[in-house]
């Protein structure tokens, strides 16, 4: 519609009311002027962007939609179509609305009287089209392109496509005639049937690629990737003369032109030749609004769920780290966290989270070195607390920055984490560039409006083809490559939702769980038998919509590709995580209620001895005996816990909590379990009695030392024993948290550097000592161990040298210590010798034997006889003969052989042999 002619035809009253609404001041002269003068006065002013914007923003949301609807169809629509698409239930209502809008200068009516077509139109004047910025997802309708064509081209279409002569005079009539024919299902079928097979094939390809395609791609799509002049000509004709394909964006090189099949034409075909009468609302309407505005129960429409993760991701990250701190989490061979561990973490996080989300957080923690692998266990790094203390916005900046730049995570790969995939995924899209593209598109969206994902994807997909050339087309056999629409889905429904940039609206939570992790088979495949169906992304039950969150809107209004600039000043009240609270509430029922903005380091500290109950707006934690034990096992003490709770608690710390902590602390460590040696150590002998009496632990006991130490069998099941001890009310403390028993029966020790040096030094000292004494004290056990532990670090400080020097210090100290003992012993010895010398009688018999007379020791017959033999004395024995008769005899023993005594018997004057065992008693005779 031509603005000038519309104005000239209008009554002065109407023009004045327009001027009034647009707040265009009429000076005295023009106020009194006639219609024509007034029209000329208004004509340039109505085209001024500032005036237009001002007036446009005064319109209601619904009224703006009417303007929008006209704009996306090229500025004007037939009255009846306009009524249907805008949802007016009667012509009268619509007339009233249009009249009202007419008085504001926005909607106009016009009648085409042509022998080709007679139509009543409603629409906006042409200049307004330039002033309304159409977001990409509302572009691409047939009317819009037809209005952009020249009369000559329109005539070509009439002749070439519709097979009719262009007998009309006016371009407007031609536009509407062509549009009506093309959008009529029967007419469209007729048009398609008249195309050249190659053209039809090219058109199908465009449809299959979601309605948009690069010129170049169509030419090269044949079996031979050679330039085909005939094909090129046909394509040119298709674009210029068919009315089926238009240039969406022209490039400097024609082959890079982006072609589009009008969206309403595509819809008609893909919906099985149903006329496209979708309203603006249906084109970009979220489930939420469908539900909220409906008046009748429509049970087939599922109720909607809105998911918003603002404020959660940092809390979830802290929870993940706290879990790793408290539980042994294995490192897999590929360097990631075990799936089973991740599965245990998922329910602890904020509601409705997936395994993939947890993987993402874990990846960030690994890359950022918040957690580090020690042996095959993950441990929280010492720098975590510092990292958390820098403030939530600084933390969040890193999380956002990570997503923006990380190649470690790739939305194309269905599992996300590329680094720790078992097979490195090949030929993935340049994901960082794609992220930028998506953000750029999001930036064009109106904030706070719900956008249908399919609509968004439709407009984005062709641009991916242009801006990220070389991306491998996903094939059904392709293991890693996913369809671009699935990549965008993953980016929106996962990454950006996780980061809190957008909020999702889904039909139900099950849908939300599937989004982002779907495979290519969920995209309707290209089917040669039905080439014109399929290709659209997503089925109805998995459709979802999204909108920018408050944070998203602020982020995109700033230099979003440069996180440092986004978070230039901190704290920034416009961004999330601005404030930090230092306090929470501890309830007497051992519940801790923490606000969403609790300082992250405090949250982490509390989580070391409290369990997660729920993460919602508030984080609810609970303190139990088990959680306290876990805390105590990691080295916390009751005073530390009470101090933290006391410092953070908004109210006085409840007595019940204080008591529980103290009680657990006093219980804890009463029984120590040593995994390495397999022992139990108790503080109180009563506990030892109790453990010995327990029927489940007793079989595992190997030995008991004293009243405090129990040695366990090698085969004892420690977990079972620990459980049993817990059941008895104990809190067994596992001796060392740096010692783990692996499945294959090995022990893994974690040592700090200085501890390792000390150990090496001690071993080295042992070796030195052996060398000095020249004795093999350690039976060749120390040297191999020392060899095994020594590492040859060429470029670093060599631990061997360090150990050597400490060992020498040890040796020096040892020598000093032993010297002391020797000196002391010598001193004592000298004193004794001196004393003995002084007590010794200077004269008298010097019998060699001093000490007690062995004869006084009756039981030792053998010694007595030996004595008698040596001293040639007589012995009186009481001897039992073999006949049983007992006799007293005096003998002179001469020799002892085995258990026989040879002796001379003076009474009988003969030598006899006596059995020692039958000598009942013996004494020195005489």
């Amino acid at each position, binding site marked *: 519609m031509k603005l000038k002619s519309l104005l000239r035809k209008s009554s002065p009253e109407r023009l004045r009311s327009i001027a009034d609404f647009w707040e265009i001041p009429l000076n005295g002269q023009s106020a009194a002027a006639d219609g024509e003068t007034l029209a000329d006065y208004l004509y340039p002013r109505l085209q001024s962007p500032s005036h237009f914007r001002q007036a446009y923003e005064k319109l209601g949301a619904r009224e703006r939609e009417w303007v929008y609807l006209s704009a996306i169809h090229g500025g004007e629509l037939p009255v009846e179509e306009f009524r249907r698409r805008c949802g007016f239930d009667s012509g009268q209502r619509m007339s009233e609305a249009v009249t009202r809008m007419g008085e504001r200068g926005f909607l106009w009516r016009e009648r085409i009287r042509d022998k080709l077509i007679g139509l009543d139109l409603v629409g906006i004047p042409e200049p307004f089209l330039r002033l309304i910025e159409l977001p990409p997802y509302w572009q691409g309708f047939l009317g819009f392109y037809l209005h952009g064509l020249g009369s000559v081209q329109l005539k070509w279409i009439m002749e070439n496509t519709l097979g009719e002569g262009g007998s009309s005079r006016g371009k407007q009539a031609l536009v509407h005639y062509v549009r009506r024919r093309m959008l009529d299902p029967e007419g469209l079928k007729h048009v398609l049937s008249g195309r050249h097979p190659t053209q039809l094939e090219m058109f199908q390809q465009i449809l299959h690629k979601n309605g948009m395609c690069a010129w170049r791609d169509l030419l090269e799509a044949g079996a031979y990737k050679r330039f085909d002049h005939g094909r090129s000509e046909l394509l040119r004709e298709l674009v210029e003369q068919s009315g089926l394909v238009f240039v969406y964006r022209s490039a400097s090189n024609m082959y890079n032109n982006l072609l589009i099949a009008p969206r309403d034409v595509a819809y008609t075909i893909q919906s099985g030749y149903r006329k496209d009468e979708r309203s603006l609302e249906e084109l970009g309407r979220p489930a*939420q609004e469908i*539900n*909220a505005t409906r008046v*009748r*129960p429509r*049970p087939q429409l599922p*109720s*909607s*769920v*809105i998911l*918003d993760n603002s404020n959660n991701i940092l809390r979830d990250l802290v929870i993940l780290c706290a879990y790793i701190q408290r539980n042994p989490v294995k490192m897999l061979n590929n360097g990631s966290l075990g799936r089973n561990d991740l599965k245990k973490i998922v329910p602890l996080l904020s*509601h409705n989270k997936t395994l993939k989300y947890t993987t993402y957080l874990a990846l960030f923690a690994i890359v950022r070195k918040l957690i580090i692998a020690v042996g095959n266990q993950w441990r929280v790094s010492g720098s975590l607390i510092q990292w958390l203390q820098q403030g939530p916005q600084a933390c969040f900046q890193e999380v956002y920055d990570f997503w923006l730049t990380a190649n470690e995570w790739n939305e194309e790969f269905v599992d996300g984490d590329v680094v720790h995939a078992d097979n490195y995924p090949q030929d993935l899209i340049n994901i960082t560039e794609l992220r930028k593209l998506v953000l750029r598109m999001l930036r064009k969206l109106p904030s706070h409006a719900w956008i249908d994902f399919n609509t968004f994807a439709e407009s984005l997909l062709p641009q991916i083809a242009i801006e990220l050339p070389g991306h491998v087309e996903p094939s059904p056999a392709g293991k890693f490559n996913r369809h671009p629409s699935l990549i965008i889905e993953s980016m929106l429904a996962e990454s950006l939702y996780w980061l809190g940039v957008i*909020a999702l609206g889904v039909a139900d939570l099950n849908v939300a769980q599937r989004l982002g992790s779907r495979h290519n088979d969920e995209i309707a495949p290209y089917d040669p038998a039905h080439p014109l169906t399929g290709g659209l992304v997503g089925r109805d039950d998995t459709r979802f919509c999204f909108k920018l969150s408050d944070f998203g809107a602020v982020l995109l209004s700033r230099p979003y590709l440069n996180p440092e600039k986004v978070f230039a000043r901190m704290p920034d009240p416009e961004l999330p995580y601005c404030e930090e609270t230092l306090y929470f*509430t*501890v*309830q*007497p*029922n*051992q*519940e801790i*209620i923490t606000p*969403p903005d609790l300082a992250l380091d405090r949250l982490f500290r509390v989580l070391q001895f409290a369990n997660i109950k*729920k993460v*919602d*707006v*508030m984080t609810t934690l609970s303190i139990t*005996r088990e959680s306290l034990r876990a805390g105590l096992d990691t080295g916390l003490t009751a005073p530390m816990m009470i101090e933290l709770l006391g410092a953070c608690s*908004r*109210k006085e710390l*409840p*007595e*019940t909590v204080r*008591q*529980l902590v103290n*009680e657990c602390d*006093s*219980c804890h460590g009463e029984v120590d379990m040593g995994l390495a040696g397999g022992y139990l150590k108790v503080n109180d002998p*009563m*506990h030892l*009695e*109790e453990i*010995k*009496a327990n*029927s489940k632990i007793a079989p595992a006991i190997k030995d008991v030392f004293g009243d405090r130490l129990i040695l366990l069998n090698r085969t004892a099941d420690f977990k079972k024993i620990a459980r049993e001890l817990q*059941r*008895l*009310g104990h809190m067994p403390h596992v001796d060392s948290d740096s010692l783990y028993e692996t499945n294959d029966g090995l022990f893994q020790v974690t040592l700090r550097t200085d501890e390792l040096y000390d150990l090496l030094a001690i071993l080295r000292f042992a070796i030195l000592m052996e060398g000095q004494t020249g004795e093999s004290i350690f039976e060749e056990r120390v040297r191999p161990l020392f060899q095994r532990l020594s590492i040859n670090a060429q470029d670093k400080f060599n631990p061997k040298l360090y150990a050597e020097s400490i060992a020498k210090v040890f040796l020096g100290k040892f020598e000093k210590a032993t010297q002391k003992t020797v000196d002391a012993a010598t001193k004592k010895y000298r004193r004794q010798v001196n004393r003995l010398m002084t007590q010794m009688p200077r004269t008298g018999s010097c019998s060699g034997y001093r000490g007690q007379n062995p004869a006084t020791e009756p039981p030792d017959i053998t010694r007595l006889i030996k004595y008698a033999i040596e001293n040639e004395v007589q012995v009186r024995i009481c001897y039992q003969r073999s006949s049983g008769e007992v006799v007293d005899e005096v003998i002179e023993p001469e020799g002892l052989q085995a258990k026989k005594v040879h002796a001379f018997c003076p009474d009988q004057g003969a030598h006899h042999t006596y059995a020692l065992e039958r000598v009942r008693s013996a004494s020195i005779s005489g």
Partner: protein
Amino acid sequence: MEKPLIVQSDRTMLLETDHPDYEEARDALAAFAEIVTSPEHFHTYKITPLSLWNAASAGLSAEAIVESLHRFSRYPIPQNIEYDIREHVARYGRLRLLEEGDTLVLESDDPLLLEQLWHDQRIRVFLARKLGKRRAQVQKGQRGFLKQALIRRDFPVEDLAGYQEGAELSIALRPVTLAGRHFSLRPYQRDAAVVFHQNGGPAGGSGVLVLPCGAGKTIIGLGILEAIGQHTLVVVTNITALRQWRDELLDKTTVAPETIGEYSGEIKAIKPITITTYQMLTYRKSKNAEFVHMDLFDSNRWGLIIYDEVHLLPAPVFRAVANIQGKRRLGLTATLLREDGKESEVFSLIGPKKIDIPWKTLERQGWIAQALCTEIRIDLPEPLRHEYAVADVKAKFRIASENEDKVHAVRELILLHPDDRILVIGQYLNQLEKVAAEFDAPIITGKTPNKDRERIYGDFRAGRIHVLIVSKVANFSVDLPDASVAIQISGTFGSRQEEAQRLGRILRPKTGRNTAHFYTLVTRETRERQFAIKRQLFLTEQGYRYRIIDSVDQLVEEPETEQRAIS
């Protein structure tokens, strides 16, 4: 200033109790949310479809609910909550059940809705024929099942079909009880009875009353019985409660003993007022056999059926209840939350919540006493430690429970409360006997003959004795007199129900300070402590003050603290 309420996306809400706007917010929430736990600082509420329908049935609009959430909410309200509220509230009242002559009619303002239900197989079976676009005739005897089916489809129906009248019964409340005390309904009890009865109109006559323990639910039941004046069936949870109802009826109303029937395992008498238990109703010989006593519902022309502790209504009874939708029915409970989540069945079959009085309100008004809970920890004497160490798990608990040092603590406590009536509650008879001998106090166990029991109770009430020792079994007896101090010397943590009942004993209003003390003696570092933790959690969740001390001396040393707690 921050606001007191935090609305979470899983429909729970946390209300900060120390906030100046707390009371206002609490009163607003009570109309459309159920209280789940009430520890000292934050109370947890939950919005359920049922709580919203209850609100809608009380005439509250979605706008009003959302508005009050906005008014008190500290953080932005999660977006789905508002939507859920509108959705559920809008569903109430769109369907009505009316009685027209002999037929029952389901009516809706929305022809499409009725059409949809007509084509829904699970609902269609209960409908006889269509009576125009907005109305359908309900099949005979299917009223309850239809209501159940509709609520499963999330369409609560407003039942305006009225009731069958029962046989008449002459009953009035006594101004002076048989025991000789003045008696009248308290204002809130009278209100509850009026709200329920609605002068006999179709809007009244069915519903659930939610009142805290010790608020006198039975008494309200008596009041309603008087207002309706028809034959009544009372279903209670156990035989003890059965006897309590009987005694209360005899004590406080004019009904003659022969008009009250006990329908239990021992006696099966059907009288104008018959009392039975859920257990009795759900009895059957084998797993697949018929329920033997379920026909009790049809055995008389009942005008009213009272379900005591309605949140415990067992699932098989639902079916029987669905059958008798023509009768007036009253549910009494302290909480509407069921462990099995079948609150909405209660709603559809018994009726909406009619009144909900928080206990703090009653405490403030002085209808129930303020309770102070104290746990006293006592060491295990050295000689017993070895015995404890080597005992098995069960014996351990017993050794800890029977800790002799508890007797000293009891003595100190008795000395501390010279003017109070004191109940000493325990599980083990020989322990109780020792305590009784020690203090020369009477003891009541399950074996004590009724005559002795009544005499002792009489003495206790009259103040001739001030310490009474009762076993765990006797402790459930309902004629147990009120006391202001309870000392629990042994016993496991029972069900929440049991604990609440025990506490109810001492929560009756007291003349004078109106403070009740509940002491628990626990042996330190033993298995007894683990049960004590359960009790502690329960009590703190209910919002009672809970203290832990190491010796009775601490109570004597800190009288000021106690004073503050009382004031």
